[in-house]
């Protein structure tokens, strides 16, 4: 049970406070309600590039990291398709340093030309390191384009292509900032060895006079229901064939989300999951196989990915996946298997909640979903899922008309084992 208090400043900034006196540290987490889905399709990768620029100095403070490190703190940030999250941890005595730094960069950035020039290069190297210079690195680039025709989930957070990042201009950066990085589009969570009164005073002092900004009205083009199966084959310089299958699934706030999440565990959650046991251990068609989803806020993708054992025909491998899916479509899972994935979920949540940093991040995320309190009721929703609901979901979601299949094949001449 995570206890917290909530208040809102007059400029619209939501503040959640989660005191925990068992630690000498404090965590300050600022979530901005903007992600890659909010980008212009001609300027993808911008939300993430912007995250880098948030460390390039703000209007009154030339450098973000240095004063934080002097105060004994450390920090990081991440961008997803849905949101951008910044967090730092420092000794609780120095909490005000974090308020000073975070509020100044919410007030305004320095918009330094040098910072933009350098971070464009850094992000291009990040792009190369993770998505170009790695075997199978372009899979999600291809899969998103295949599965989405309309919704901005069709590009990755890092961006569609390098030129989108290389061509980013300072004017674009400013526009993006004043549109999205405003108090009314942000959630501040302060956790650790702090008191609500102290946080209230600090929040008023440092964030209170920042202009509210205009609330961002999100109206993203929604993905139409897919009505026929899509397939694509690519050849790459990789040692092993691989298969990726996705199905459109419900959004994070849909009632069926919990059944979908448990279903992904039944299929691919660890060494006793169905796909691993049947296809890696018994039939030995795959050297590895996984089932997962991204928990996207808008309707996302339910995914199975597998690396084939060398020499196995990909048609046979795909048929074996389908046979496992048939079992789920034809028959409800038994109670023990359902209980197993529920128990795993309970334990994952308990371990996640051990660190005050994770608790702060989760609170911000659930507040974005509508209410930080959801964090405390989440597991009940998993516990309430029935075998029939999972059965129904498997039948509705795992249809071929709703599926996208990518055969990612080793090109002739690629080195093999």
């Amino acid at each position, binding site marked *: 049970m995570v206890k917290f208090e909530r208040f809102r400043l007059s400029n619209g900034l939501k503040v959640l406070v989660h005191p*925990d006196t*068992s630690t*000498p540290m404090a965590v300050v987490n600022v979530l901005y309600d903007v992600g890659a889905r909010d980008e212009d399709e001609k300027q993808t990768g911008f939300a993430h590039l912007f995250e880098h620029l948030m460390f390039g100095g703000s209007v009154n403070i030339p450098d973000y990291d*240095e004063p934080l*490190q*002097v*105060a*004994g*703190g*450390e920090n990081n940030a991440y961008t997803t398709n849905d949101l951008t999250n910044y967090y730092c*941890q*420092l*000794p609780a*005595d*120095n909490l005000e*340093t974090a308020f*000073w730094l975070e*509020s*100044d960069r919410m007030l305004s950035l320095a918009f330094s030309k040098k910072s933009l020039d*350098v*971070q*464009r*290069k*850094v992000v291009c*190297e*990040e792009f190369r*390191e993770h998505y170009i*210079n*790695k075997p*199978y690195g372009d899979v999600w680039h291809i899969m998103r384009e295949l599965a989405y025709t309309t919704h901005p989930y069709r590009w990755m957070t890092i961006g569609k292509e390098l030129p989108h990042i290389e061509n980013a201009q300072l004017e674009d950066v400013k526009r993006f900032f004043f549109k999205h990085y405003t108090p009314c589009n942000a959630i501040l969570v302060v956790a650790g060895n702090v008191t609500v009164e102290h946080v209230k005073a600090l929040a008023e002092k440092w964030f209170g*006079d920042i202009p509210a900004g205009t609330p961002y009205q999100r109206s993203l083009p929604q993905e139409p229901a897919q009505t026929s199966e899509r397939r694509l084959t690519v050849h790459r*310089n*990789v*040692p*092993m064939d691989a298969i990726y299958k996705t199905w459109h699934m419900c959004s994070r706030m849909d009632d069926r989300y919990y059944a979908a999440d448990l279903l992904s565990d039944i299929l691919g959650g*660890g*060494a*006793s999951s169905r796909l691993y*046991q049947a296809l890696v*251990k018994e039939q*030995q068609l795959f*050297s*590895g196989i996984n089932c997962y989803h991204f928990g996207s806020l808008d309707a996302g993708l339910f995914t199975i990915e597998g*690396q084939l*054992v060398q020499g196995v025909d990909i048609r046979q491998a795909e048929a074996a996946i389908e046979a496992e899916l048939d079992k789920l479509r034809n028959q409800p899972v038994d109670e*023990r298997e359902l209980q*197993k994935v529920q*128990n*795993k979920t*309970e*334990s*994952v949540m*308990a*371990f996640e*909640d*051990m*660190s005050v940093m994770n608790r702060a991040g989760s609170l911000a995320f659930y507040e974005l979903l509508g209410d930080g309190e959801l964090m405390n009721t989440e597991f009940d929703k998993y516990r309430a899922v029935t075998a029939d609901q999972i059965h129904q979901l498997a039948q509705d979601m795992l249809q071929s008309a709703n599926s996208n299949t990518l055969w990612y094949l080793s090109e002739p001449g690629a*080195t*093999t*084992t």
Partner: protein
Amino acid sequence: MPDRKSAPQIKDAVDYAIQLKHPEILQLKNKTDLYKVQAGTEEVVQIEWVFKAGNWYEQQNNVAAAANFLIKNGTSTRSAYDINEYVDFYGAYLNRSCYNETAVVTLHCLTRQLHSLLPLVQEIFTDAVLPEEELHIFRQNMKQKLAVNLKKCDFVAGRKIDALLFGDKHPYGIYSEMPDYDALEIETLRRFYAQYYQHGHCTIFAAGIFPADFDSLMETHFGSLPFNQSAPSEPAHLLQPAEQKKWNILNDTDGVQGAIRIARHFPNRHHPDFPGVQVLNTLFGGFFGSRLMNNIREDKGYTYGIYSYLQNHIHGGAWIISTEAGREVCEATVKEVYYEMQQLRDGDIDAEELLLVKNYLIGTLLGDLDGPFHIIGRWKNLVLNGLDISFFNHSVDTIKNIQAEELRVLANRYLNPDDFYELTVI
């Protein structure tokens, strides 16, 4: 209006007293030491069984790793699936990992499930059968994984630099080739299991919130096993560093980045320079605000990230600088690394920079000692390296008190380009 131009008052992190909570130490009847840290807010536990069963003790490549992997893949009464299903059903994680000197089996679970899980852990230490079929699957999957990894410049560079430093026959430098997996035989693995696990040398580290009968549970399940009956014979391994210092390897003609490793030998934690070099390393390349990061990422934009670190083995280690940089700026990156070494040898470290590093290190340490798993992790490190709390306290004192001049002496002692291997893999 707050004064946004000036930083709020801070308490210097170096003014914090840092204390590492002591574990409770028990010895089971069979002389197995059990270190316990009872702490935390969640009803969870972590238990690690550490065996002297790393690749230091093997006579054939990958035997230690394979035995470690197969240990939970079947007993005389349960299949690998039975074991996995059982562990998953209780929402637990039973992992194993193999290192150079040690091999570890780790259990994470909710406190209330511990009673159901310990008998299974006991079973895999007494009755693992290491099925032939499981070895076949392991071999096949590891070879495929290796084939994929060999496409990655960072993977190739990581294993090559170890081989250059220690020699490719030494446990710290040896790496896997496809035929090594083919050569594995089940009987060799079973012998290794019998010698180094069943009758091996075991130490247990536990942390979290324990059930009331924890001590007797541990005694019941592990106190009568034939552990620690004799000290394992310590094999001697010859260091065979490469003679050639500079290496350029073209692994992928289409590669758009190069993996750079610049490395030298560095003594183990018992060396008197170790704590000071930890501070010097932090300043040099050990954190996001380091000189390497500021110069090569934040000023030049050559890389997504660059770090230096001390690679710590029990018997000795290395000091390594590691990055992936754009193919056309690899040379420039290497040059800047040497430039930063020179700056540390000849230039000044001003008081502000040094205080920043000290505050950062102490602040991180404060955060790091937060929670039972981190605390036991520190103790595990001390115990396995033959150190005690005085090493930890001395490290903290060093961070708080070391002076710029001492760091410059250390830089002159250790940061000389001639002592470094230099490797770029594209």
